[in-house]
């Protein structure tokens, strides 16, 4: 979480895992097209959505993320053919487990964004940032030692 000292307004910290071949390129396109999306979205580039280990998501929360989103190629379009199919199952189960532990289920999300969807990338991020701002600071799944 980052708090702007002047306004004390809550600004969520969002971590976005983006696969190199689609979503990261989509983010790039959003940038070159001068579309705006919140600066609080920190993008972490991964080779494929399938690279995202559940631990990555938990670690992001530990280090103070208020929301974590994973983006990959649309099902059927994965650069490695099947990576996102596995990732889809994995994330479904992980999110369900987080909900089971009572952690806000809206704080995690998966979106499929292709390299041509700069517009969609910006829209997804704006929407997610809005949702997280509404939810406020993540207190349930953070490590107090990592908080400033």
């Amino acid at each position: 979480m980052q708090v702007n000292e002047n306004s004390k307004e809550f600004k969520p910290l969002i971590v976005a895992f983006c696969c190199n071949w689609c979503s990261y390129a989509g983010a790039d396109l959003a940038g070159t097209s001068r579309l705006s999306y919140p600066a609080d979205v920190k993008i972490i580039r991964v080779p494929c959505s399938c690279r995202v280990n559940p631990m990555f998501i938990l670690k992001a929360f530990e280090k103070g993320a208020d929301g974590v989103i994973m983006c990959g190629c649309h099902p059927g379009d994965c650069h490695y053919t099947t990576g996102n199919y596995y990732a889809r199952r994995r994330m479904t189960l992980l999110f369900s487990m987080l909900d089971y532990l009572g952690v806000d289920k809206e704080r995690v999300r998966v979106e499929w964004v292709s390299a041509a969807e700069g517009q969609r990338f910006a829209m997804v991020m704006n929407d997610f940032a809005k949702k997280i701002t509404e939810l406020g600071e993540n207190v349930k799944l953070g490590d107090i030692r990592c908080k400033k």
Partner: protein
Amino acid sequence: MQEITGLMVKRAKELLEAGEVQRVIGWTTGDFCYDVTPAVFTKAEDLEEGKFVYNSFCGSNLSKYLIQTLRNDINAVNTAKAMAARKGENPDDIPGPGKTLVFLKPCDTYSFNQLLTEHRIDKSLVYVIGVACRGMADIEKIKLMGASGITKVIDAGDKLEVKTIYGDKSFDKKDVLLEKCACCKGKEHKYADEVIDPEPLPEGEGKGPMDRMAGVTMLEEMTAEERYAFWNDQLSRCIKCYACRNACPACTCMKCVFDNPRSGVDSKANVTEFEEKMYHIIRAFHVAGRCTDCGECSRVCPQGIPLHLLNRKFIKDINEFYGDYQAGEAEGQRAPLVNFDAENDVEPSIVNEKGGN
């Protein structure tokens, strides 16, 4: 129990003496008759009844013990071969490790199949005797129900006669079953070279009296806040002894992430509640789709944390989202998390759409 123990000892002795097997993995008693522990027997004379036991406290799943036993034996043979080669002898003259006899209860055979599927054990080195089981008792429940100073427990059909220094007590076995036995999947062995079952149950009978998903459903019906409080309460008691990992026949990595100081997640006692949650989510996740629901993790937890509620949540979700699946039902199954259905798999957003609490 007396009768079946006799049959087991007899058969194990025969196989050892005939040289068909080199060692036997079974159970032996500890300081008290109820703290039965796994043991490896290599000599027929050690298999006397009294040393080798099979009673209502043989809950431990011996499939897990095969991994290390077989590995040790193979290492010993390899070392002997290397020594022989160095001395200029023919390494091929060194005998192989021979077979290991293991006694498995019905639920343990699921784990055995899972280990075969994952190539963790070599079937040709094992001789499996499936043993009949009528449910294993939980000593903690017996103690909670008022028995202290226990000196002896006698199996008497549906009853357990407990002798204590304060007098005798009798318990209905069904009241003191281990959690896993109360929800037993069935009394049929899914793998066995032979089965010892003097009085087989009629087919289809033998499931535990309780619905194994009842606990998960109950939690799902709570609000998120209640669930959060429930798990904080439970997991904050964890002392990170790793018994749940060590006993689990699905946790078989040679190097576990939680032992690796470079993983950034190794720790002993938990410093914050985050670490508790991380450990438990990851432990359950690493066995998701491979957990046979053998119940060992909950049984061994010294803090009595209901770990089965985490494993069964994954099992329930997998069944709901990807179709019914029972890990270890047969050898060679493809686990749901290393599989997919391009057209029919649900999107992760289903967790939000399901709405609820």
